[in-house]
């Protein structure tokens, strides 16, 4: 069934380039996109088996929308993506909702909709919407995509004119999400559970016990997410400020198997994404764009009675994009993440027997984007990274992560 969907989407995307334009059928609009990248890294794997070079970096989407009347709009987008172990080109419902725009200042979307976190989260799956292949990871961590990308629920939105002072875009949402079992979020908690069980086995062994434990089953259930976003579009053309905020709670069900007796015991855990907020600034002119965002969050994660994290993280980045010609732009990015804003040297990790550089991630990236025409975009970029935070151990052998590493990406995208 999955292959059928992939073939269907790929077939559509192969045929439609001949048209290079959206398909309009009696007020039903069909659009889509397809991107394929190649990523290679040195010293560490990043999001995939990238040290050997990987083509597991693609997205394909098919969007169907219809304006029912002047206020009501229906839309759905199917998305197939692959990023290392995540996605595997399974076709999923990316978003689907009914949008009722009562006035320009008040509308409501009911269904599954993208979450307005920071300036760019909503567009994170469409490669051609951003200057680089990935959004800055300190705030738009690919491992947390499943948690942050979209929610099933109610979303209010609108635009409030402020006369000569500009205008304000607002959004607010409440809903819940479904975790995919191949998502970074899922695998990170599963790894936490396995590490805890491994430590318990070491203790049992040191006590002379023959009992050995193993992870039998694992499940994540999201209770709710909610949040809001305000973007102030100033009277100065291209200058906007934003503030967004997100909260969410998920429960873990963990089944531990006693390999000696065959008995299964149930344990639990919880992930409380507390006070995740982002301050944003963007100044865009036809020749250049400057963007910077600052964020903090307090992810309180407990697994099987052990507190995995309760520190306040700190993230920020600055990005300059210079459009050297109408079709060519160069980008420079400096992106910083600290797992604990009060422990920037990583002493807490050292105390737990881990390297200090698990406490940060600093990414200096340069990239070029070439808009071949309305439909095609090509990108090439290089990143020099210091630090192994943001779940790098998920993609590397235990204790094999390196402090200094780099990666480059080549990517082509098509949209119609």
């Amino acid at each position, binding site marked *: 069934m999955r292959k059928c969907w992939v073939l269907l989407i790929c077939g559509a995307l192969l045929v439609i380039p001949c048209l290079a334009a959206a398909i309009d059928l009696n007020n039903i609009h069909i659009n889509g996109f397809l991107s394929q990248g190649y990523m290679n890294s040195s010293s560490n794997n990043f999001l995939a088996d990238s040290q050997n070079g990987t083509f597991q970096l693609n997205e394909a989407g098919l969007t169907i929308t219809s304006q029912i009347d002047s206020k009501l709009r229906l839309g759905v987008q199917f998305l197939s993506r692959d990023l290392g172990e995540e996605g595997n080109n399974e076709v999923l419902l990316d978003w689907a909702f009914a949008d009722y725009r009562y006035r*320009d200042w008040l509308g409501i979307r009911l269904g599954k909709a993208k979450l307005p976190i920071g300036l760019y989260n909503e567009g994170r799956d469409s490669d051609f919407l951003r200057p680089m292949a990935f959004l800055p990871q300190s705030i738009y961590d690919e491992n947390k995509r499943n948690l942050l990308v979209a929610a099933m629920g109610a979303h209010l939105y609108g635009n409030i004119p402020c006369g000569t002072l500009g205008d304000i875009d607002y959004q607010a949402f409440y809903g819940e999400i479904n975790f995919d079992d191949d998502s970074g979020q899922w695998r990170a908690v599963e790894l936490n559970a396995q590490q805890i069980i491994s430590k318990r086995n070491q203790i049992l062994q040191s006590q002379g016990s023959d009992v050995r434990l193993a992870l039998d089953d694992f499940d994540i259930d999201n209770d709710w997410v909610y949040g809001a976003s305000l973007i102030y579009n100033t009277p100065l053309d291209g200058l906007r400020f934003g503030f967004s905020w997100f909260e969410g709670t998920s429960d873990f069900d963990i089944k531990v198997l006693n390999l000696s007796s065959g008995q299964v015991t149930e344990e639990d855990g919880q992930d409380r994404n507390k006070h995740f907020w982002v301050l944003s600034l963007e100044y865009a002119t036809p020749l250049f764009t400057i963007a910077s965002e600052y964020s903090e969050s307090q992810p309180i994660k407990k697994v099987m009675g052990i507190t995995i994290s309760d520190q306040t993280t700190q993230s920020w980045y600055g990005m300059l994009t210079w459009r050297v010609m*109408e079709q060519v732009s160069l980008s420079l990015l400096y992106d910083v993440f600290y797992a604990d804003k009060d422990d920037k040297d990583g002493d807490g990790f050292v105390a737990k027997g881990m390297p200090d550089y698990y406490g940060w991630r600093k990414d200096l990236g340069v990239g070029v984007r070439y808009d071949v025409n309305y439909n095609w975009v090509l990108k090439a970029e290089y990143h020099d990274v210091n630090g192994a935070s943001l779940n790098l151990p998920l993609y590397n052998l235990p204790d094999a992560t390196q402090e200094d590493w780099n990666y480059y990406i080549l990517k082509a995208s098509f949209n119609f």
Partner: protein
Amino acid sequence: MKTICYIAFFLLIAAGACWAEDVVLVTHPNNQINSLKMQEVKNIFLGKKSSWADGQNIVVFIQQDNGATTTFSKEYLSKSSQQFFTYWKKALFTGTGNPPIILGNDSEMKAFISAKTSSIGYISSDALDGSVKELKIIDKD
């Protein structure tokens, strides 16, 4: 260093040279609206204002990536044409809005505008004729 300066200067000149054509905003001759403020133009073409004062839905037409669009997006929206199209692609692929209908050239624009009273679009000033009405911009520099 000198070479880099020359290249940067050339690229800036090349980027600036793309904007040469004069464009005018147009609507149906029977549309009651005769003039707009710049902020209104921005809000209409960025999808933030969706109805005229009489309550009719605004139907927005734009042109493909050509000289008229390059001039219009820079002078009226302070964006490059690529930024303008990316803005609407974001709305389309995130579900937050339906992009305007993209037309091929001035002739096509005039044909569509003259068929819809509540429409708005832009054409090269050279192409202006009686089939459409020019909208004056009150506070344009």
